[in-house]
């Protein structure tokens, strides 16, 4: 692909801290290379801000290779920007052309309070995982991986669900700020495997109880989460979570 440089206008949400009232700031950037990643472009802007003695924009990032789920920018109305099945860190500037204006906002949900600028607090996801997103195994030698035969289709579906990186784009995109796609991925990847069976009832019940406590909304199956998920987690997982939850809720004996 041909390389080119571009001048851009950025409208970025700035907010000093959780309590402060934020607002948009407009920045001009020149000579941005089409070969930069989106976050490198923000790095360039931050260096410019530091040189000018201003506060750089706070944003989350870690692996910058689309696997950790840390980056989280709501770019021109879409979590992780314009590309399909992509994270912010894997978005590249060739998606833009000279003269474009780009609006960047943080994830918006009361369960994801803004820490600063574009950084939000996603520890609510950690607490949901702690409530049941695990299996209990004894320590000691690793068990032989093929000790329990697993149907290939189930293994594949489980693996696809396990691809969720916990970024929270699903919540950011959902009109109800529902975390159901995330929770359904975390419930499904275990529920589909025999190893997940012993704890499957408590898992669904406890994770949903925690999800409700954190203030996420109810799922209304609009599908916005699936459309923006960088890992293409399917809505089918939400149906499976409903199934797991209802099955457990209607049959538990205490």
């Amino acid at each position, binding site marked *: 692909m041909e390389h080119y440089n571009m001048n851009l206008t950025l409208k970025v949400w700035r907010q000093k801290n959780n309590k402060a009232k934020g607002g948009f700031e407009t920045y001009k950037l020149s000579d941005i290379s089409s070969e930069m990643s989106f976050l490198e472009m923000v790095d360039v802007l931050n260096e410019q801000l530091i040189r000018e003695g201003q506060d750089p924009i706070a944003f989350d990032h870690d692996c910058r290779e689309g696997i950790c789920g840390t980056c989280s920018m709501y770019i021109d109305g*879409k979590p992780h920007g314009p590309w399909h099945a992509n994270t912010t860190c894997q978005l590249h500037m060739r998606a833009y052309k000279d003269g474009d204006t780009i609006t960047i906002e943080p994830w918006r949900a009361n*369960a994801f309070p803004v820490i600063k600028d574009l950084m939000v607090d996603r520890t609510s996801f950690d607490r949901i995982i702690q409530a049941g997103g695990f299996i209990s195994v004894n320590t000691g030698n690793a068990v032989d991986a093929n000790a329990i035969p697993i149907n290939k289709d189930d293994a594949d579906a489980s693996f696809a669900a396990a691809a969720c990186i916990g970024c929270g784009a699903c919540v950011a995109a959902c*009109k109800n700020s529902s975390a159901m796609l995330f929770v359904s991925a975390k419930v499904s990847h275990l529920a589909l495997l025999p190893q997940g069976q012993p704890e499957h009832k408590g898992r669904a019940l406890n994770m*949903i109880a925690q999800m409700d406590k954190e203030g996420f909304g109810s799922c209304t199956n*609009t599908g*916005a989460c699936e*459309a923006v998920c960088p890992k293409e987690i399917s809505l089918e997982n939400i*149906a499976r979570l409903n199934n797991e939850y209802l099955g457990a*809720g209607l049959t538990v004996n205490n």
Partner: protein
Amino acid sequence: MKWSEFFTSSIGKKFVMALTGIFLILFLIVHVGLNACIFATWFDSEDHGAMFNKAAHFMGANWVPRLLEIGLFAGILLHIFQGYALEMKNRSTRSVGYAVKLGNRGSKWYSRSMGLLGTLVFLFLIVHIAQFWVPSRITGLEETIIDGKPYHDLYRRMIEVFQQPWVVALYLVGCASLLFHLLHGFQSSFRTIGVVNKRYMSLIQATGVAFSIIVVLLFALMPISMHLGWVK
């Protein structure tokens, strides 16, 4: 887990919405089937609404449909109240909104507008119940003699009511709202009760679209044909 915890959890509330929704879908089949009897005059010129009046009579005649009717009103009310409660809760989860919206890039407009569409259907229902259910069950209607027996002339009532253009317009708005409410609601309710199987889900999706369109078209045809004199 207490029952109260189950039914007040986010999924429990949606479960109630889905079950009442499916119940109301079943009711629509009965309702549209029964009312389609007005079209009997297209096949039998001597009918003059007799088939429809008899069918409507049956719905109030013994305790089985009467009991179902009570269940129906309870189901509608539960669906409405639970729907508003969920809508309010869901709207409260994002205090600061976005400057640029995702909009139709992520979902269908009608999937995001179930509260609005439901409200339109609800407003329509108030007028509809006042126009037909109240006179037929409470305040009384003119009678007609079919095969030597007296029946409420609900058919005549329909023809009279549908002479006014504003009523026809209102019914068409009601039908359009119901169409989009069903297009989302039909498949969504089955997802909510936990249908995971892909083969069943695609069957449900196709059935849902066909059901929504056919049922709503039949309903819409009723005021239109009576207004235009296709059914006399």
